[in-house]
């Protein structure tokens, strides 16, 4: 597939890198000379110096033969104009635009069916808010990713020193009545797709696949404290903070929001109903103790200052907050902060990258964890009749070593498979794989990986 990416900021760059590693033909359009040079020497894509808002540059990039254009510059207007020209130059191209301005988002239908025909509009902030809300549904998890409208969940859990499953082999977990499948284990900086004989070690981050109705079973098995989410503190009352607080406003969760700026606090108070608005500094230890951070289930730190976010989260942890969610913008910081004890990181860019990649090839990226180099991914695939993998038991299928079938979706039925299960034609598969195994998977399904 040929994909044009406009803008090589962190989002554009990461998407280009991922797609190029998956053997797509990628052309990047970027205005900054230095970035163009850097891209050329780091990833195998064609980098064109110029503006994505110029039809001639788009043509030079070969828009006529391209399948997808991703407009991911920092400017909403540039992204819209790039899509506008793309629409003008070719009829069939899939258009993805990153839009930040909430005003534009309100009227997104204009950009979709009515006028520009943009296939996917991404707002990094609202993507991030959505992923935070998902996380709150399963508060004991460090990450939750939904599949099939949330009927299948991939849940990341950090194993503590006193966990009952320590040292047990994964196949022994399957003796239980309910099906749980451990798809990925992240140990230190190593990511692996485990087999039945692998054991669980302290401080492992494991990713389990489970049906929605069986998620409570997972934490019973792991003997996690089953407490509903009752107290949340949000530090930082910017747009994201407000959006999150607004979503929580209608729930029974006791929510407080801390904001430094008095004027902004007034605005927040006007917009929020039940949420308690506090005017204060998140780095102030006395203030946090006063507001009883020790009893908080989740502390969400969303101020505009990256470094403060990390420190506030650590302070919150030290004061007894059960869990912290920290906003980190710079992708290069993420592996570092995980190493110093930050539980969960959210990033608007990461959310945007994830949504775009997912749209392009129905794959979801697991990358919250301190994954160095090779990351794991989850892909949805349809098994075709002609494929070599159908109608034989899974244990007999020659599957790549670094990939595993996490779930089989057969109509309404969801199967968490074991070795004796069989894949039938037209089943949808949820496959977990390390990045390196994706080309092999693609071969196994030969052009059958579902892209659209």
């Amino acid at each position, binding site marked *: 597939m*040929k994909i044009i990416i406009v803008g090589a900021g962190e989002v554009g760059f990461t998407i280009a890198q991922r797609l*190029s590693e998956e053997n797509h*033909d*990628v*052309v990047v359009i970027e205005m900054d*000379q230095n970035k163009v040079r850097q891209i*050329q*020497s*780091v*990833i*195998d*894509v*064609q*980098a064109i110096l110029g503006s994505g808002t110029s039809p001639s540059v788009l043509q030079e990039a070969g828009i006529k033969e391209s399948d997808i254009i991703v407009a991911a510059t920092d400017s909403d207007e540039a992204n819209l104009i790039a899509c506008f020209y793309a629409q003008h130059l070719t009829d069939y191209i899939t258009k993805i635009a990153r839009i930040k301005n909430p005003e534009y988002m309100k009227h997104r239908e204009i950009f979709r069916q009515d006028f520009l025909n943009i296939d996917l509009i991404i707002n990094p902030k609202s993507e991030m808010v959505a992923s935070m809300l998902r996380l709150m549904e399963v508060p004991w998890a460090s990450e939750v990713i939904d599949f099939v409208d949330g009927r299948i969940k991939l849940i990341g859990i950090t194993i503590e020193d006193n966990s009952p499953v320590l040292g047990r082999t994964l196949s022994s977990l399957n003796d239980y009545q309910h099906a749980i499948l451990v798809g990925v284990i992240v140990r230190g900086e190593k990511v692996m797709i485990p087999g039945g004989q692998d054991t669980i070690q302290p401080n492992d981050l494991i990713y389990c696949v489970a049906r929605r109705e069986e998620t409570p079973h997972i934490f019973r098995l792991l003997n996690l404290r089953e407490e509903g989410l009752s107290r949340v503190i949000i530090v930082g009352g910017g747009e994201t903070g407000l959006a999150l607080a607004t979503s929580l406003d209608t729930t029974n969760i006791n929510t407080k929001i801390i904001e430094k700026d008095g004027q902004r606090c007034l605005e927040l108070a006007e917009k929020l109903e039940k949420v308690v608005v506090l005017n204060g500094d998140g780095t102030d230890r006395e203030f946090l103790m006063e507001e009883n951070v020790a009893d908080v289930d989740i502390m969400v730190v969303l101020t505009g200052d990256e470094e403060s976010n990390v420190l506030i989260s650590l302070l919150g942890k030290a004061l007894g907050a059960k869990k912290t969610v920290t906003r980190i913008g710079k992708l290069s910081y993420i592996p570092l902060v995980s190493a110093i004890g930050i539980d969960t990181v959210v990033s608007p860019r990461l959310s945007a990258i994830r949504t775009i990649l997912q749209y392009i090839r129905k794959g979801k990226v697991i990358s919250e964890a301190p994954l160095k180099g090779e990351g794991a991914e989850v892909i949805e695939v349809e098994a075709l009749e002609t494929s070599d993998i159908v109608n034989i038991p899974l244990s007999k299928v020659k599957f790549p070593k670094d990939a595993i079938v996490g779930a089989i979706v057969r109509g309404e039925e969801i199967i968490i498979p074991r070795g004796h299960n069989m894949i039938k034609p037209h089943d949808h598969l949820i496959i977990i794989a390390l990045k390196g195994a994706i080309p092999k998977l693609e071969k196994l399904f030969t052009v059958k990986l579902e892209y659209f």
Partner: protein
Amino acid sequence: MHFRQIFRLIGILNFFLGLSMIAPLIVSLVYSDGSFLPVLYSLLITSGSGIALFLLIKITDYSSLSQREAMAIVTLGWLSAGFFGSLPFLFSGSIGTITDAYFESISGFTTTGASVLTNIESLPRGILFWRSLTQWMGGMGIIVLSIAILPFLGVGGMQLYKAEIPSPVVDKLQPRISETAKTLWKVYLLITLLEIGLLSIGGMPLFDSICHAFSTMPTGGFSTQSASIAQYNSAYFEGVITIFMILAGVNFSLHFRFLKGDFKVFGRDPECRVFLSILAILILLVTFNVYGTVYHSIGKAFRHAAFQVTSIMTTTGFVTGDYAQWPGLSQIVLLLCMFIGAMAGSTGGAIKVMRIILLVKHGYQEIFRLIHPHAVRSIKLGGKPVPAEVLNSIGGFFILYLTLFIVAVIIMSSIGLDAVTSFASVAATIGNVGPGLGLVGPVRNYLSVPDLGKWVLTFCMLLGRLEIYTVIILLAPAYWRK
């Protein structure tokens, strides 16, 4: 430095180089000229050494190939190709000494076309074919060829490509580097086939047509005849070869765009316009200079002037007339051509028209700045601003080119060669042209140059083909420091 990676890749390179000897092997079978066994032994040794390197050195990570390693791979790869490429000459007894065989082999791969052979017609056809094939492979680049074949190089491929492609700016034609390399080779192959066809139609024997096309397209210059193209004395052959020498001297990305339907691309490209203008002016100048003094008809004067100027300026080095006997002005023009060279991104050598244009523009800018001290100007090529770093790199290249040229000339003259020979032999080898003047003139060859001189010239050929930086950096102590 990842030495394992470097040597493993060179192993792969050797393996493919060995495989390419299958072609001369077939030729020697067809003509049963007695070169079958020498070529077979060379093949086995070359591929065998490649397999040995590949199997003995175990690594899996190709992605971390940095620019530094890429330069080492390219330079060492070329040195090793020169060595293994000389085996068929040695084993068949066509060339007696290692020095001469290595000189001939590097001259082939670097598309120089300087030869130590005296009686070319008497050589086995398999060996002659190998001689032409080395040029053809070296023209578009043996590394670029392996990038096209080996998809796993990924980003590392880009670094290798940059280190080998003869151009100050690298043009990526396709999103993937392996596709870019494949595209270039396809265009190259297509034009070569076209030339073979046109020469055959004109009555040149098929074997000669193939060898000459394999020699024209890389702007090499090896011929199957001792007297080069003059042997045929055919205006048709000379015309066809002149046109294809010009095509070979044009940036191959322009050919690619042309084939994709952009028919005005040659006229639009500023470098191409300057290249063709310089060529036209110099041809006219030489025509009028040799008319009446050497040739007595204007047609004949034009025919030889056009062929010879094109041959030298595109750094091919075919010969139809003994230009050593031409008047002084013509000789100076041809010497000048040896420095100008063809377009960037072509298979030609020397300084290249793009660098000349930018150097002139840079010079003019300095004058302009003296007149208008407050003026702010940017140097443009075809309406697009040229980045300062490209200009700096061109300035550095020019100075290094001249410095190395002077050093080599001093060495050549100090081992007893006359001034003209010293000057012309270095100009003709560092510019990858082939024939020079004096003892190494168009109807003579490099056999009489002393051994030390041959090694100096061999090094010059490599410097010229890999555009100096890639080779010379390996001599910098800082390069090897951790």
